[in-house]
């Protein structure tokens, strides 16, 4: 060892000073800001908190591409073959695709946020809006700051800016994300395994029905897993040849990753470790502009987290749960996670073959790392990057299991397994990279994967049981698609899911708000400023003495006369009814009725059956 190899990396003093100052500033600003003012600040500044890292990412990506040459960056020597494969894989993913909202209400909320970003640049989920100026413009007037990080709605809003507002733009972003995911996974695995291993990895990713579900929805998870993959790829590139540009790209990519999902903040740690490792290898602390700005860029996220923690309602604690996280939850969630990963019952968006192959590969990968422990620095950069990130992906998975709602076998939670599924799909390429140079091993694994794809994934994607069972989405599709066509600009809809109506520019109020405002509605209806008021009610059947009986209405008796217009059932023993209010009697509302229901819904539509 030379003396030089033990020396501390060199650092430019002024950069170090600015870096420390920016951290101090960011921490002080984030925690000293009063929570009341934080909401207003975030509402108007969130857009720009996403804008800055996005611009920096594009700048550094182009810069990196120019300096290393696009051809070297991606290795596009056989581009015809790769393009063909990319198209073939995309076809397999999309052949049974049904673009639409997949998770209610998450997807609706995200689209609404993107809509508001597009109109006002404000971070705000509209719950209600109205037609201003006699029906010229639709204006949102009520809403809240969402708990979800906002990179995805921000990017969707950019597409709205470029092509005008359309709900379909949300699907387009996820569709493009999955393309980037496949490319990034291909080039990441190709760095250690042969092109065969890389193709197999893409095939394994395509074989996960959860990917197809999320690639055609409007959720944040596809972008999140894509950014995780991109960050790992950049990390590998950085570890291979550390430089200020690559460091900047890696940091800004990690920041975008953190802005894409709540728990992705955890990936700040592996990114920091890799950045430091790069400094150590290069014998230089780069501290590029993104590194210096990293802490201030995260202020928005910290403020949102403070708002999130201050409101219990946003945690959606239900069924008597007292704490959001707890080790006790692992005992319940782990068996359900195992069931999710290995179940063959055909109702979950899982891939048992990928689970089995991935877990086996992870074990081999661990053994391989153990064997190479002494010469870990000589391992391929991608292997090093995966080793560091995989630890945190597993940690993320454990945190998920400790979460009160981390029941992966539930339709609404299974998408949270995507980062772990990505790890399972990447692992074979790393664990068996030497074996894949022998055609027979590659052929067997690929053959089984193709059989799995034909025998499991494609039929699962075709049936989409895991998507179709989303009954709330079904009833909203029907309400907005069929009943919504009859709702005019001077009509009002009273529905628990007012955000969904607002996205489609229908004036809607939540039931509690509407009942609080009965007098106001009555006056407008009498004055002719409202033509019709529609009330959506969801009712359950109960079995009494062996006979089905529809529950009585949850609205106070006698406060309005109503006529039933439509009714339909979307899940067993339940009905969605749409009424038109003929007369409203605000005076009949009991004085304490609203007070007793504040903080809860007029109706509870939380269906625990899935």
């Amino acid at each position: 060892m030379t003396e030089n190899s033990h020396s501390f990396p060199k650092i430019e003093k002024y950069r170090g000073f600015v870096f420390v100052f920016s951290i101090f500033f960011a921490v002080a600003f984030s925690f000293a800001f009063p929570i009341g003012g934080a909401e207003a600040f975030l509402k108007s500044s969130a857009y720009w908190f996403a804008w800055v890292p996005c611009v920096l990412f594009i700048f550094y990506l182009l810069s990196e591409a120019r300096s290393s040459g696009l051809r070297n960056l991606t290795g596009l020597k056989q581009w015809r073959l790769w393009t063909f494969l990319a198209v073939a894989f995309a076809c397999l993913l999309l052949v049974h695709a049904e673009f639409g909202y997949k998770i209610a209400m998450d997807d609706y909320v995200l689209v609404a946020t993107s809509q508001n970003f597009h109109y006002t640049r404000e971070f705000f989920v509209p719950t209600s809006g109205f037609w201003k100026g006699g029906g010229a413009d639709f204006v949102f007037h009520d809403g809240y700051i969402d708990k979800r990080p906002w990179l995805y709605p921000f990017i969707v809003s950019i597409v709205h800016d470029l092509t005008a507002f359309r709900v379909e733009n949300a699907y387009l972003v996820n569709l493009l994300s999955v393309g980037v995911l496949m490319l990034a996974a291909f080039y990441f695995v190709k760095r250690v395994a042969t092109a065969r291993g890389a193709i197999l990895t893409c095939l394994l990713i395509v074989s996960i029905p959860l990917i197809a579900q999320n690639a055609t929805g409007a959720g944040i998870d596809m972008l999140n897993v894509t950014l995780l993959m991109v960050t790992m790829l950049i990390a590998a590139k950085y570890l291979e040849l550390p430089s200020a540009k690559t460091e900047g790209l890696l940091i800004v990519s990690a920041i975008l990753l953190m802005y894409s999902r709540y728990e992705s903040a955890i990936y700040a740690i592996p990114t920091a470790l890799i950045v430091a490792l790069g400094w150590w290898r290069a014998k230089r602390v780069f501290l590029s502009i993104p590194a210096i700005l990293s802490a201030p860029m995260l202020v928005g996220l910290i403020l949102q987290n403070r708002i999130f923690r201050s409101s219990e309602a946003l945690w959606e604690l239900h069924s008597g749960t007292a704490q959001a996280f707890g080790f006790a939850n692992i005992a319940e969630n782990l068996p359900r996670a195992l069931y999710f990963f290995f179940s063959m019952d055909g109702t979950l968006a899982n891939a048992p073959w990928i689970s089995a192959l991935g877990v086996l590969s992870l074990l081999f990968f661990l053994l391989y790392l153990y064997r190479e422990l002494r010469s870990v620095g000589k391992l391929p950069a991608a292997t090093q990057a995966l080793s560091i990130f995989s630890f945190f992906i597993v940690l993320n998975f454990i945190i998920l299991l400790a979460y009160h709602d981390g029941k992966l076998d539930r339709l609404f939670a299974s998408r949270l397994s995507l980062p772990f599924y990505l790890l399972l799909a990447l692992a074979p390429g790393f664990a068996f990279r030497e074996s894949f140079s022998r055609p027979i091993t590659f052929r067997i694994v690929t053959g089984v994967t193709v059989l799995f794809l034909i025998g499991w994934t494609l039929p699962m994607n075709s049936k989409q049981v895991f998507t179709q069972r989303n009954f709330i989405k079904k009833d909203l599709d029907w309400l907005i698609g069929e009943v919504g066509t009859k709702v005019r600009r001077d009509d009002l809809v009273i529905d628990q899911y007012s955000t969904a109506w607002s996205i489609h520019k229908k004036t809607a109020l939540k039931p509690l708000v509407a009942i609080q405002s009965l007098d106001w509605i009555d006056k407008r209806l009498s004055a002719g400023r409202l033509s019709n008021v529609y009330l959506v009610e969801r009712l359950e059947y109960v079995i009494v003495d062996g006979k089905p009986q529809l529950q009585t209405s949850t609205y106070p008796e006698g406060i309005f006369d109503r006529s039933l217009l439509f009714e339909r059932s979307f899940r067993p023993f339940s009905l969605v009814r749409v009424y038109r209010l003929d007369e409203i009697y605000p005076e009949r509302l009991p004085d304490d009725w609203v007070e007793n229901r504040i903080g809860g819904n007029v109706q509870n539509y939380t269906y625990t059956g899935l």
Partner: protein
Amino acid sequence: MPDIKPAALLLSSVIIALVLPLFLLSPAQIQWVLQYCTYWVILALLVFFILGLVRLSYDPNVRDDWLECFRPLQLLFIVGMSWLMISLQPTGYKVVMDEPVLIVTAQQMHQEKQFLVPYSCYELGGVFYTFDGYVDKRPGFYVFLVSLLHDLTGYRTSQGFVLNHLLVVIFIALLAVVGRKLWPALGFFVAPLLVLTVPLFSISANGSGFDFLNVLMVLATVYLGAIYYNSPSEERMNLCILSAALLAHTRYESAMYAVPIGLLVILGWLRTRRILVSYTTSLIPLAFSPLLMLQLMIRSTPEHWQIRGESGEPFSLTYLGENLEAAANFFYQFGPNQPNSFYVSALFVILLITCLLRWPSLRNRLADFKPPEGWPAYLLLGFGATGLLGLLMFYHWGQLDDSAASRLAMPFILMQILTITYLSSLVFQVRLSGLIFVACAVFYFMGVSRPVCASTSFLSTYPSVRQAIWTREKVIEHRDEPALFVLQQRLIPVGERKSGLEIRTAIERKAQLALHLELQTFSEVYLFFTQDRTDTGTGDYTRFELGSHFEYEVIESQRLDRIREVFMAKLIRVKLDDDTNPYESLKVFDGIDKPAEWSALHLSTLP
């Protein structure tokens, strides 16, 4: 001597293929094997077949045969002929209920990889559930291909039609290649032209039945058999046997082609003076085992034979007279009543008789006479097709002039066309006479086949086909609503992934239907039923099928023929007897209040 290992493996697989279905498996186990293994057996056969074709394509002679198809004129001819064949007839159901059964089997293969026709099918909350079912008597290759199309391009009930249209192009190209081998001068054009004069081929190509695939596989087996005999090798033998195995999985009786192919394989061995046995060959008997199981299942289930009337036997000498008369009526009728080609039938007889009578002089005249390459393949499979047609004459459903049965004549007509093509090469030695022959075929097509095809769909005697087409249209119109369709042909809505219930079941389980009508599980319950005029001459309609079990409101109707009409109605009320409790099935919910369990139990209460 063959290699001992594959030979031992061959012997073992023959024993397993026979012993398993005949002695070891119970009928229930046979049903299980067929249900779960058919898909994978056919997939394995197809993969080996395609790999074999890829290897065969490296052979320069074979490659040259096919490169011929890609020359501009030839390519234009193939595309044109395919387009003409597809456009001669309207696309739609041709044989009811065979085609809906195939559509639903393909759906089940696609969704569950099971070879099964489900009994109960419901669409609830957007999810399509299928329960129980029976293994159909029809072999699975066609439905497998349709399911593969579903897998790779998305689920659509029209995939059966799409597949047959795709097969048309392959068939025409292959026929042109085989035609060229039989008559190097003009065979490439003559054989497809002759096929075009037979409307039966166009009818099959525009339906969603398996007959077009069957005739294509017969032709492919002839072609591959000829290639094998011409230059026997293990790889070519494998391909020939795999083709025969896939053919056997296409139609019931096509397993009989295993006999001529077996003989051809032995002739190839004699030619090379070596017994060729490969590992692939040695495993093939296992692929025939499901067919044996299917046969055993058909034999054990008399309903599968669909015996008409009271007569007992599916095969009998007593059917011969009627069937021969029907065959003559089919082959030699001139006009729009039969989807035949009088030209092909007549030419076949004339050329055959001419050549037989003038054989010595013909042979002397043709100094360089030599039979076509691989002639035993043509001869043996020709005898096979003729033998099957002969067997059909003893079958209770063997009246070829009946449009449901005439499609069974397609392999024989194909052999007629191949024979005509070869004999024409002997008779029309002068190029001009050959061209006149081609002109006659074109003239017949333009003068007879085309106008006949334009004026009739040959389905006038089958109101059930029109009923099925109308019903499907109505189901598609209401596809976006979660409705229940109650009808005799319940597989039509099931094919569209909608809830379908047979009228008989609806009547048997009236209580459950009443319950779900009350719960509004389905957006609407639509009833489809037919009515006939009574023969009392009063003009009144007599309602059958529904009885007096339901109160309904008719919303649409369609006249099927002079006396029959099909109605679509909305169910308003189920008329229950006083002692029937519609809530009986809710007893399963006693003591249960968790919605999750309700969801599962809800299915058990369905009619």
